[in-house]
């Protein structure tokens, strides 16, 4: 092929490709299964977010006056506009969910242990960046839910000790959520966070390729025997394992497409700062932190409850980042890491319980033939008798 030859003479791509082929054909450990494709699934969702985000940018107008109208036009006038937006909205949920599942898988298999501490830390940073994307993106529709969830969400910044008020003004761009807030969130969403994500993601993927998928052997055994030796007999990464990942990613994409088609993302009424809608709560991934604030005492040792809530949400983040250095034992098998597994289950249980309480708070739920009214803290206030037909 003359063109390929012409390009090879100038770029040397053939030798690069040969090196890449040799690297990619290295075997993966034998225990690798479909669960190990969750990272690829997260990457697939991220690619969908980038592609649909760019398409949305063609139509979205980032101003308080025009944002809601531009989305209305996108949903009602632009061909397949509803589909692109639904993919983006559902993709955000699935991206965060997949990141959490991926991290849970790495945690259970002890994949964060040496020499992969940095891979874990970069992965944790990617999770935080993903949550940042989700928060900043949820403001952009500028409907009632977006406006008031942002009002509640940004108010958390006010609870930061010493610099709370300044931080709140910095996040909102003023005293209240408004035009400046939307501008900031938009800039963060489409420029700052992507720029921050690229190097972190690149380094994470490079480390994954460099160090390979962790084996089931203890960390010291892997270091002593060598990763390549332990992977002998495993199937090649390419094309065998890549096909397995493609299979799972294909199913995940199918799920995303079906959700986007069958439950398309709607658009609420335009943001109205004078009318607070009932039941304002953040997205599911922020519910545990949101709910945690409600259980703080009014004040403790002279520290205000809000500040306590803010401070209480910092240790989980630090725990996440410092996990490889806190759990330094070489053991990877869950049965020999009872302390770490118990801690993991505790975090999962607490997060799940807070999430459920946050979901139930200030709701009226009809179940088992009775009506349950849940208070702000998510506890049932009273059983209001037999369920009645909704009017």
């Amino acid at each position, binding site marked *: 092929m003359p063109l390929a030859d012409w390009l090879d003479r100038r770029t040397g791509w053939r030798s690069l490709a040969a090196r890449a082929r040799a690297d990619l054909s290295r075997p993966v450990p034998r225990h690798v299964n479909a669960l190990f494709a969750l990272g690829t699934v997260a990457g697939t969702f991220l690619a969908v977010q980038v592609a649909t985000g760019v398409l949305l940018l063609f139509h979205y107008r980032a101003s308080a006056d025009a944002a809601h109208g531009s989305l*209305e036009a996108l*949903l*009602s006038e632009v061909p397949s506009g*509803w589909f692109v937006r*639904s993919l983006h909205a559902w993709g955000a949920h699935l991206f965060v969910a997949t990141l959490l599942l991926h991290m849970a898988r790495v945690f259970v298999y002890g994949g964060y242990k040496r020499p992969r501490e940095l891979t874990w830390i970069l992965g944790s940073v990617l999770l935080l960046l993903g949550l940042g994307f989700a928060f900043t993106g949820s403001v952009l529709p500028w409907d009632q839910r977006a406006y008031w969830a942002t009002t509640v969400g940004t108010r958390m910044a006010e609870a930061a000790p010493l610099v709370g008020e300044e931080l709140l003004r910095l996040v909102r761009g003023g005293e209240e959520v408004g035009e400046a807030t939307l501008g900031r969130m938009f800039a963060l969403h489409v420029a700052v966070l992507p720029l921050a994500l690229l190097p972190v993601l690149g380094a994470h993927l490079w480390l994954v390729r460099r160090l390979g998928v962790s084996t089931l052997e203890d960390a010291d055994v892997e270091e002593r025997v060598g990763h390549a030796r332990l992977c*002998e*007999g495993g*199937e090649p990464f390419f*094309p*065998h394992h890549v*096909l*397995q990942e*493609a*299979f799972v990613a*294909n*199913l995940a*994409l*199918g799920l995303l*497409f*079906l959700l986007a*088609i*069958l*439950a*398309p*993302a*709607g*658009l609420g009424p335009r943001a109205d700062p004078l009318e607070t809608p009932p039941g304002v709560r953040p997205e599911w991934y922020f519910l545990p932190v949101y709910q945690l604030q409600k259980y703080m005492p009014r004040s403790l040792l002279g520290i205000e409850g809000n500040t306590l809530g803010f401070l209480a949400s910092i240790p989980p983040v630090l725990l996440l980042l410092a996990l490889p250095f806190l759990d330094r034992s070489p053991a990877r098998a869950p049965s020999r890491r009872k302390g770490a597994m118990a801690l993991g289950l505790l975090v999962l249980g607490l997060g799940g319980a807070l999430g459920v309480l946050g979901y139930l708070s200030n709701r009226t739920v009809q179940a088992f033939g009775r009506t349950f009214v849940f208070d702000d803290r998510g506890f049932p206030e009273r059983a209001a008798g037999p369920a009645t037909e909704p009017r």
Partner: protein
Amino acid sequence: MRGGPTWGGGLLLAALAGGFPGRGAQDPGSAPASVPVERCLECHAGAARDVASGAHAALENRCTGCHGGNPSSFDERRAHTGKFRAVPLSACAACHEAEAEAFAGGPHGVAFETKAIRGCVECHSFHAVPRPDHALLRSSCRICHETNAPEIVESGRQTADDLDRLESALAAAARALDEAERRARIVRREREGLEADRLGLLALLPKQHAMDLEPFRSDVAALRARAESTGARAAALLEETGRRRRWAWLVGALVAANALAILWRRRTLLAARPHP
């Protein structure tokens, strides 16, 4: 219907109402706002029952709102003094100004002036005033016009049919918009249009009292056309949303086919691989 005052019952009512007004405590002719119970039903229990069964049941001042008088008095003469009126058009006009204006400008207004009819009550009845219903156009016209002007009876019937069809079109459009919105469709403009049509109907309804039914019917027809057009747009949105579900099946089939192809390819590769 009218009997002697039941003083015991009146006193009990007054006591329950939280006070015992002394004789002459009230200025005859005025209806003090602080009196919560009208004593008219002491003598006019039947009329009060009729009012309670009609469209005016929820009014606080059910009797005095239309008739005036002094509702706190047990004395028949005093109770009927002051601004008391029997069945005046002005009583209806106090709340139904637009209807009364249209009525006065039409043929029924002339008939009322010449005392040939007794005003609104002629069609709407006295105390058991029915809730607004187009069926009245079918039943009331024939009371006077069945033999002398059957074309008026027919026109009334057709107008009632037109109004029923308009209301059905508005309700159908609202249902379709609700359903479209439930399926995440943007229907703000359609809703605004439908709301304008509803307000248009409310503004139009009083004009039927002028009894010039042909232009009224053409206005109703125009409103109905708009409501049906909104309903058709909502139906088109719903149909298009339904087509999406068919796309979902196609996507599902493609995903499944692709998954099978990937599995087959992987299986082939694994089978060709030498055992370690």
